[in-house]
């Protein structure tokens, strides 16, 4: 399955592993933050509607 990476296998796999982890972390972090902010804003908006 994994192509023969020769003597540089560790380097190549490390580069892909770390980069993809960072990218996934960035995407998940952004999505989670977006969801959290949306929920918090909805709560504040509800309070705002009820006061005014």
């Amino acid at each position, binding site marked *: 399955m994994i192509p023969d990476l020769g003597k540089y296998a560790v380097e190549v796999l490390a*580069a*892909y592993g770390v980069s993809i982890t960072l990218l996934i972390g*960035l995407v998940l972090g952004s999505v989670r933050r977006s969801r959290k902010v949306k929920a918090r804003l909805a709560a504040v908006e509800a309070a705002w509607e009820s006061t005014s």
Partner: protein
Amino acid sequence: MSIWEYANPKKFIATTTPLVPWLLWGAIAILTVGLIWGFFFTPDDVRQGSTVKIFYLHVPSAMMAINVWIMMLIASLVWLVRRHHVSALAAKAAAPIGIVMTLIALFTGAVWGQPMWGTWWAWDPRLTSFLILFLFYLGYTALWAAIEDPDTAADLTSVLCIVGSVFAVLSRYAVNFWNQGLHQPASLSLDKEENVADVFWYPALVCIAGFVLLFVALVLMRTASEIRLRRMRALEARMRS
């Protein structure tokens, strides 16, 4: 209709919210295709062996690391000149993406250099420049985080971004002067396609498109989050008074 209409926060959210999932999934799909193509279905380079596969991560992330900063610079200028809040918040939202791109570029660069240079870290001009860029990103985000008032923060970070850009360019020249370098000359520029054989070039293009699309999706999503936070703050301030 003028483009500045999208500088209205509500209009921005209304327009971008339906787009973001498409853009994000599209980016993930293209990036998956590009990386799988690059990782599994390209030959090893005669000279560099399998390390050539790092190319598909290193080049797009390095391009993005610089382009994100340029986008922040433009957004900062727009904020200072036209006082559009969305612009300032877009710059704020882009910075963490730039940090991750710079980290990827640094890490893949170091790893790629390891077999070539025989050392994990070489003070090669390009790598050094990215390290300096990384410090600029850190300072920029730290300044955003440190200032309470959002408009003050937007103003000061914008000024810092402009001054920082001048010094970043200056550093690039200084670093070149300081160490003539081990890096191969720019391996990918549009007018010098023959630098890289087509087998490497096509998957790289796909990866670049994926990175760009990913950045667009993330920056829209994160800007929307920043706008919502500002709205929350504004409503809370009104409810208190």
